[in-house]
């Protein structure tokens, strides 16, 4: 087939079964937008900022498990998108981002809207391409999708000069991907798996340490089964929330800096860490030399570079978690005796009784944790939950009753304020039958607030619940705790009228400060099924607890903050 480079992009997206892309046009990508205009196979959603387009593609990918697609122009369009690329890179989100570039003849001349896009994206993508000949486009786009979704998933950036999108060449998408230098290992070494299972059978206090890789590998079901049949307790990282049901008796909770007392103590007391798709992030481990000090470590991950990077693995297993977990289940049938771990479960239950995750209700002001729990009670499984970054994010991770993988959408590795709203928009596209909630802060929401326009235009009713503490709360918390209350540049007393702001774009706004008002607002927003801001006035100085101070040991938790 002889077609233009721009047409090739369209054909490739169709061949990849893409149903929606998120983007923003401009000079260098206009040929492709012209072809988008002419086609009817997929939908293009015009975000109102390139960063938001990429986060929306991430939200779509995280909720659906499919590759998210974003399209942007050169220069400022591309640089605006970089935060999204970096975010997707840190959280291993499968994504293809296509950018326009100035014509080949102008590359290197400081042309209008020229920037070395692949130079910039190299360090925040799994791979990237500068296309120099339309004849390469079919191969490159096919590779891009393949690389994005296989192995450890990640964003792939394809930069296409304008003249290449105009160039006519042969297009053949049927050739299978042939990458001699890229062969993600999927099965896991059988002998290693057996040895790991022996260690499990011999351990007294084993602990599953579940990470986001489980969600990426669509291995939730297998992991649930493995946990259930072994009777071994589990902790989850921030990214793994939803792997086990919130009411699973074997789920302790989240671990890490804001993990529960029981989760962090279990990790400190275990004699065998069974790490599945987790990467021993510093926000999880605290002080490395004290982390799971007396434990042997099993580490299963698709990315060999994640294994023994920070914590030495005694049983390293490189492989796809779905496959490895299936083998583990098979072996566990004959080797694992549940009874063995009952005393350990009793110890864990004691940790839980000692300091359960909790907060103190206030008679006057709403507590942010209550709001989150309340949404859980009212919507539970019927909602997908996105967040921005800050205290509200940690409280949501702690208190929302997650019931399934991909229900929880958050920016973990990069911690990107402004992620939540566009991501929740992408989530709504991927899973329209569920309510899309974004728990956000009064700081974060202003970092992509323009998406009010996109969500209103495309009728993507995201409900933004602003846990409004008039602070950059998480930074304020650190200042309170570690900077002697010098609240430097974190006071957000000056605020927009969030109700009017939502209304100005054609959404609905609610301002609430009591439980009754909150219930009424949420109910109304869900019923009306429109884009909403619920501005919830919450207690200003609430802190996220427990807290492991940065670099401290996991077992040395601050459990509450006492006013000095």
């Amino acid at each position, binding site marked *: 087939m002889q077609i233009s480079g721009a047409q090739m992009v369209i054909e490739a997206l169709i061949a990849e079964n893409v149903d929606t892309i998120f983007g923003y046009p401009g000079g260098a990508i206009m040929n492709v937008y012209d072809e988008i205009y002419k086609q009817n196979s997929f939908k293009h959603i015009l975000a109102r900022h390139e960063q938001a387009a990429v986060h929306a593609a991430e939200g779509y990918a995280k909720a659906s498990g499919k590759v998210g697609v974003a399209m942007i122009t050169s220069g400022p369009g591309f640089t605006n998108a970089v935060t999204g690329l970096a975010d997707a890179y840190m959280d291993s989100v499968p994504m293809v981002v296509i950018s326009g570039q100035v014509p080949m003849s102008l590359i290197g001349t400081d042309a209008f809207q020229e920037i070395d896009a692949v130079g910039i994206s190299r*360090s925040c993508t799994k791979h990237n391409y500068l296309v120099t000949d339309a004849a390469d486009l079919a191969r490159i786009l096919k590779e891009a999708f393949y690389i994005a979704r296989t192995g450890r998933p990640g964003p792939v950036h394809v930069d296409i000069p304008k003249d290449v999108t105009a160039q006519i060449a042969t297009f053949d998408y049927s050739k299978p991907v042939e990458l001699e230098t890229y062969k993600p290992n999927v099965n896991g070494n059988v002998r290693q798996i057996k040895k790991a299972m022996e260690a499990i059978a011999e351990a007294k206090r084993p602990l599953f340490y579940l990470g986001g890789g489980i969600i990426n590998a669509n291995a939730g079901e297998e992991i649930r089964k493995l946990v259930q049949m072994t009777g071994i307790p589990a902790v989850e990282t921030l990214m793994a929330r939803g792997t086990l049901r919130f009411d699973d008796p074997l789920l302790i909770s989240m671990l890490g800096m804001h993990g529960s007392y029981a989760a962090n103590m279990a990790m400190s007391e275990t004699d065998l860490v069974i790490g599945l798709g987790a990467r021993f992030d510093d926000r999880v481990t605290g002080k490395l030399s004290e982390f799971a000090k007396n434990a042997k470590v099993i580490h299963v991950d698709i990315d060999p*570079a994640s294994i023994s990077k920070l914590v030495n693995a005694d049983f390293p297993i490189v492989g796809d978690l779905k496959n490895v977990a299936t083998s583990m289940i098979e072996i566990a049938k004959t080797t694992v005796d549940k009874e063995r771990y009952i005393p350990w479960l009793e110890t864990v239950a004691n940790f839980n009784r000692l300091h359960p995750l909790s907060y103190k209700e206030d008679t006057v002001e709403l507590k942010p944790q209550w709001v989150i729990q309340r949404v859980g009670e009212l919507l539970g499984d019927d909602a997908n939950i996105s967040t921005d970054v800050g205290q509200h994010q940690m409280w949501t991770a702690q208190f929302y009753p997650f019931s399934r993988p991909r229900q929880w959408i958050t920016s973990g590795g990069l911690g990107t304020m402004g992620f939540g709203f566009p991501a929740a928009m992408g989530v709504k596209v991927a899973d329209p039958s569920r309510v899309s909630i974004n728990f956000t802060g009064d700081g974060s929401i202003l970092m992509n607030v323009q998406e009010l326009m996109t969500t209103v235009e495309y009728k993507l009713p995201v409900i933004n619940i602003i846990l409004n503490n008039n602070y950059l709360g998480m930074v304020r918390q650190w200042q309170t705790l570690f900077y002697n209350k010098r609240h430097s540049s974190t006071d957000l007393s000056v605020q927009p009228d969030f109700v009017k702001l939502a209304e100005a774009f054609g959404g609905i706004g609610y301002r609430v400060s009591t439980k009754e008002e909150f219930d009424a607002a949420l109910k109304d927003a869900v019923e009306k099924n429109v884009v909403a801001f619920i501005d919830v006035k919450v207690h200003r100085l609430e802190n996220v607890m427990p807290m492991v101070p940065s670099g401290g040991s996991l077992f040395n938790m601050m459990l509450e903050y006492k006013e000095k």
Partner: protein
Amino acid sequence: MEEAARRVISVIVINEASVLSRITDLFSGRGYNITSLTVAPIPESRYSRLTIVTSGSVRVMEQITKQLHKLIPVLKVIEHADLVEKEMALVKFPITENLSDISALCSAYNGNIVNVSEEVIIAMVADEPKRVDYFLAAVKRFHPKEIVRSGAVALER
């Protein structure tokens, strides 16, 4: 902390645009050292071979190797244990220095005089990097005007 020792690795990559920057970006982005780096195409293939001299603990080396492997165009990473290693150096001396003394020194280090002009003498040696160090120390007394080292190349025995 384990000591950071000198290590030599060879990396075979697909010879395509920006592959070298992928590698150097990885080193700078993750804070690894590069002592020297050489690169040239492997004859009659679509590959290039890089020889990187770096330093790091065993753990850092393991990470470097794994991270290199993760780069899509990387075919193979060889961490050398038993290797033959050579480096070349060119040194420019003023014509006023003693030609035969320099020449004698060069031959002790696998080298010779490669150019003599009206104003300068250029000598070449090719030897193990450590021995190139010795050579360069030894020729100091001939007042070298310019020195260029190629960086090491290595083959596993």
